């Protein structure tokens, strides 16, 4: 027989010293935010200028994203283990004989993984040529490291939130959640252009990815609209980049130049994730406050159906707008993401993958939508599991 476990209430027991988030929490969140900002800037650099060095501003911001949380968490681990108060040591976990908060260990792990990707990436460039795509094995290692740095920061915010329930901690947690969502979306950039919003691959990739994060955040956050807020942060962050990057002039430095851009290229407009996130928040709020294996499984099915029912039509029709002349302005910046190395043409404002003659023919069919829904279910189910665990994390 299944037993339902109550997810901890929004206002747990408070201790006086934990009602205010430690001073370095904001620094950690700033560091985590540097990761997607640096990544988006770097992508824009490669699509507008092309040539880079180890010390481009975009690279430096990305390094800051690893170094700030890494050094902060390294200091936190040393302080907690060697000079920590009894209270601090009591809110730590042991790892290889040392004691520190779980989030600090995860961020340190992410930092070392990011460092590992550097020589691997260098060797990769010397062996297979400079990779001009986002998805490559060394970039995946880098992304894994970045993700764990941000996850470590998230866990630190989370444990503070769960111990104190301060509104500052809750907000920092959900901001970090939005940053992670932005990072994940950046990693899926090559599958998420508006031109791909009528391909099965886009919906399957989205179904695998987004329910996991939205459901986890909805369940772990003490805010009422955790997933919606995080999605808003994701969209807001991306839109800021869309508006800010083109303010800077740029000149391609590599041949061949098919598209002579004169401004930093913005990223593509974000997905309207606030819409499925709102639906997920509603579902979790009304049906997911208690957890249990069967209960969560049924809830995951409901969320998967809800996600597909909301996400698919939203993107289906929004992409039609994004590919219309109405979106050709500074706000939506439709098609402005095109790199210097691509020939401009009608393809920029057309759907891709819909030509039956093309080997990339990949239309959305009921069968493919069912497959995407199955992925969404698995993703949501894992999200509910992690969300339930995260809502209890205190160290």
């Amino acid at each position, binding site marked *: 027989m299944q037993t339902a476990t109550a997810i901890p209430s929004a206002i747990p027991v408070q201790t006086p010293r934990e009602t205010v988030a430690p001073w370095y929490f904001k620094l950690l969140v700033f560091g985590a935010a540097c990761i997607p900002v640096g990544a988006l800037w770097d992508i824009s650099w490669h699509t507008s200028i092309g040539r880079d060095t180890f010390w481009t501003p975009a690279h430096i911001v990305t390094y800051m994203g690893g170094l700030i949380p890494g050094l902060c968490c390294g200091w936190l681990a040393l302080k907690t283990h060697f000079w920590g108060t009894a209270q601090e040591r009591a809110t730590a976990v042991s790892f290889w004989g040392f004691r520190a908060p779980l989030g600090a260990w995860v961020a340190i792990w992410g930092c070392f993984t990011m460092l590992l990707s550097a020589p691997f990436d260098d060797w990769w460039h010397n*062996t297979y040529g400079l990779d001009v795509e986002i998805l490559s094995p060394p970039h995946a290692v880098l992304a894994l490291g970045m993700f764990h740095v941000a996850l470590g920061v998230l866990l630190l915010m989370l444990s503070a939130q769960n111990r104190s329930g301060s509104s500052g901690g809750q907000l920092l947690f959900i901001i970090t959640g939005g940053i992670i969502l932005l990072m994940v979306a950046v990693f899926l950039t090559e599958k998420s252009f508006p031109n791909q919003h009528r391909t099965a691959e886009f919906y399957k990739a989205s179904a695998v990815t987004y329910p996991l994060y939205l459901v986890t955040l909805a369940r772990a956050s003490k805010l009422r609209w955790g997933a919606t807020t995080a999605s808003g942060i994701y969209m807001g962050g991306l839109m800021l980049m869309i508006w800010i990057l083109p303010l800077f002039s740029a000149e391609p430095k590599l*041949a061949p130049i098919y598209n002579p851009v004169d401004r930093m290229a913005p990223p593509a407009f974000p997905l309207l994730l606030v819409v499925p996130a709102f639906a997920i928040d509603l579902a979790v709020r009304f049906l997911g406050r208690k957890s249990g294996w069967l209960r969560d499984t049924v809830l995951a099915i409901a969320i998967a159906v809800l996600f597909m029912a909301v996400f698919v039509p939203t993107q289906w029709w929004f992409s039609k707008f994004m590919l219309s002349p109405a979106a050709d302005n500074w706000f939506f910046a439709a098609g402005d993401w095109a790199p210097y190395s691509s020939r401009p043409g009608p393809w920029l404002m057309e759907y891709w993958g819909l030509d039956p003659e093309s080997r990339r023919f990949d239309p959305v069919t009921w069968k493919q939508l069912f497959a995407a829904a199955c992925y969404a279910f698995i993703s949501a189910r894992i999200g509910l599991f992690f969300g339930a665990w995260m809502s209890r*994390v*205190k*160290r």
Partner: protein
Amino acid sequence: MRIWLALLFFWPLAAVAHIGSPNIYYEGNAGPYALQVIIRPPDVIPGLAEISVRALDGNVQAISVLPARWDTGTKGAPSADPAKPVRGDTNLFTAELWLMNSGAYNILVHADGAAGRGTTVVPVNSVASARRVMPRGFGAMLGTWAGVLVLALVCLVGSAVRESVLPPGEEPTPKRVRLSWLAMVVGGFVVAAALWGGFRWWNHVDRDYRNNRLYRADDLKATVTTNDAARPILKLRRTNERGSGRSLVPEHGKLMHAFIVRQPALDAFAHLHPVRIDDQNFETTLPPLPAGNYKIYADITHSSGLTHTLVADIVLPANHVAEFSKADEDDSWVASSSPARSEAQKTCALPNNFMMQQVGIGNARMQFKVVDGDGKPAALEPYMTMQAHAVVHSHDATVFTHLHPFGTVSMASQQLFAKREREKSNKPFEVVCGLSARPDLIVFPYEFPKPGAYRVWVQVKINGEVVTGFFDHIAS
């Protein structure tokens, strides 16, 4: 082949247009300035080309370079990069340029000085020509690092399950400890599955690189048949596996330059110009060469400007045709010469008392003289528009290069680029290939790519006859 971490070396594959000699040497005028340009192209694409430019007459104040792909030309090129002067050598400049795509590029070299600006163009084949494997020490370092991280990740999963949800100060129960061990096992499997997926991904990229991105010259098949007059005919059939079906353009008026070299003695040599039958088939009459094993090196140039050297092996039967008529008036051969030796040979006697001398190899140049019986410089006539042609062949057959006094580049590529530029911009764009020839000296800009023994054939035309001198050189 599986890419695992314990791999040590990389092997350079055939370099396009030449074999085992990827660097590009060029000497020519950029307007009023004489320049020597050496380009070390990257062996993976995208990659960095290293460029060094020497002002031969010392009047150049600044050099700038830019890469232009064959199809986009200067319209699709970035602004030129200034080359840095080398400290201690006022006439030498260096620069690096990224070559982003595979195919034919042209490096434009601008020289600025008191006489204004001059420009020359150096064609470059931009192709991936090497496949590296991970050095053992580097692989061990990376593997150890990754191993520690994997172990740490699994232990972190254990720590998270064991303690993260406990209220501050509370010790984990034995049940929770057991649960953490279970989580570590499950986590270990998940991490192992992720690593396995990563290696499959890596192997997929490597396979794609080897099959689709790594340069592979067209296959060349050579056969010998006899025609109606019982004369041996050399038939060459090229098959382009990658489907790059661009048409060929003539280099010095010939669609194909085939060099036939007897192996391993290198004592018989022919420079022929097979006639195109169709896109794939070429044929020519075989001159009277001694029987033996031969290598055939066939140079062709695509209309994009990309040049290739196709290689085939063939066994030639004895060929004693009493009366041989050339299939092409510029065909030439040396049926018997002394076998290649592992010691330097600097002089070569030519017919009619002429003598060819190697007078210097160094500073990226090979220099030769042709003198008559009185020791006076011979009057050289243009041979296929060139003062001379040279072929460099290492004794171990790993290096083959066909070059001219302007260097190792394709003159056809250079002129094609200039023609396209004129057509696109409707402005004059002229490139003068090479420097003015000196009557008393033949200069080939070139450096041997690796130490070893080489045979060099130098061909000139005297009194209407093509004569071939041969030399052995030991590069240290």
